[in-house]
């Protein structure tokens, strides 16, 4: 942005950012009740396809946004970390629902208290479950982040 960037490369940066933010391939890692809210966001009424994020890819190699939807238990945590490690750069993580943000209403022997204890998270979408409008707002914040980051 300052100094070493020229006009051309910053425009190229913006263009790549524009392309990346409007073609998000998500990996919806759905474990629990938030999955229903994810389904309702993805379907006709609150359409996620109009933001360019309408194609979920159920493989970490083919996706760039890992949406962790639903409660993660300690038994599942190494699996989730492995999935995250298998994704290629650039990758982003969305913590969908309070169980993944902070552990939710759980405080017991089995639940991970927020997935940011095991991986870096870009956008937190709180709610139990979050309203679809909230999810779309979170997605737009993610898109803004993608646009403005160094490509």
């Amino acid at each position, binding site marked *: 942005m300052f100094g070493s960037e020229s006009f051309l490369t910053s425009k190229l940066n913006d263009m790549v950012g524009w392309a990346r933010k409007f073609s998000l391939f998500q990996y919806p890692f759905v474990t629990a009740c938030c999955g229903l809210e994810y389904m309702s966001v993805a379907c006709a009424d609150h359409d996620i396809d109009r933001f360019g994020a309408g194609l979920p890819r159920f493989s970490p190699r083919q996706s760039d946004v890992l949406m962790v939807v639903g409660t993660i238990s*300690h*038994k599942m*945590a*190494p699996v989730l*970390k492995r999935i995250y490690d298998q994704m290629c750069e650039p990758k982003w993580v969305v913590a969908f629902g309070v169980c993944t943000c902070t552990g939710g209403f759980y*405080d*017991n*022997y*089995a*639940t*991970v*208290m927020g997935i940011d*204890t*095991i991986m870096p998270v870009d956008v937190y979408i709180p709610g139990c479950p979050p309203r679809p409008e909230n999810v779309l707002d979170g997605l737009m914040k993610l898109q803004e982040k993608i646009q403005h980051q160094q490509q």
Partner: protein
Amino acid sequence: MAQHLKTMSVLDRISGKFQNIILETHFFRGDETVLVRKEAIRDIMNFLKSDPELDFNILMDLTAVDYFWMFKKPRFEVVYHLYSLVKKHRIRVKIGVDDREPIVDSMVSIWPAADWYEREVWDMFGIQFAAHPNLKRILMYEEFVGHPLRKDYPVNKRQPLIGPKN
């Protein structure tokens, strides 16, 4: 009225035959419960399944209760819920399991459904089942130490596989 007679008759039929192993029975609003001795559980279960009058062919549930804070002896109770698809009656069978000797005969040879239920009871309470084909943890992971649903396991104690130990 006929309904009432039919449900009481399960208890009548078994209390006549197994007087020395039945510790107590009660019947409340259509629910029959019988508390038996741990050692004779196999005999009474075999009778409940094979007797043509009773014919309990489904094990609906197998679970355990921990009476730690009620200071009750014996500490655990394993509860079996049986149902008969043909005769349409139910019964609940309870056995008292002591803390120092938490071993019970397995019901897998009588009802195969008991397999995963007994694994869950082993995982959560630590009650072992003799002659179970595959008694290992089912809900928690193998490295977990302890039995979480016992009342003396601290509620917030986590044993994470990865990540910080908070």
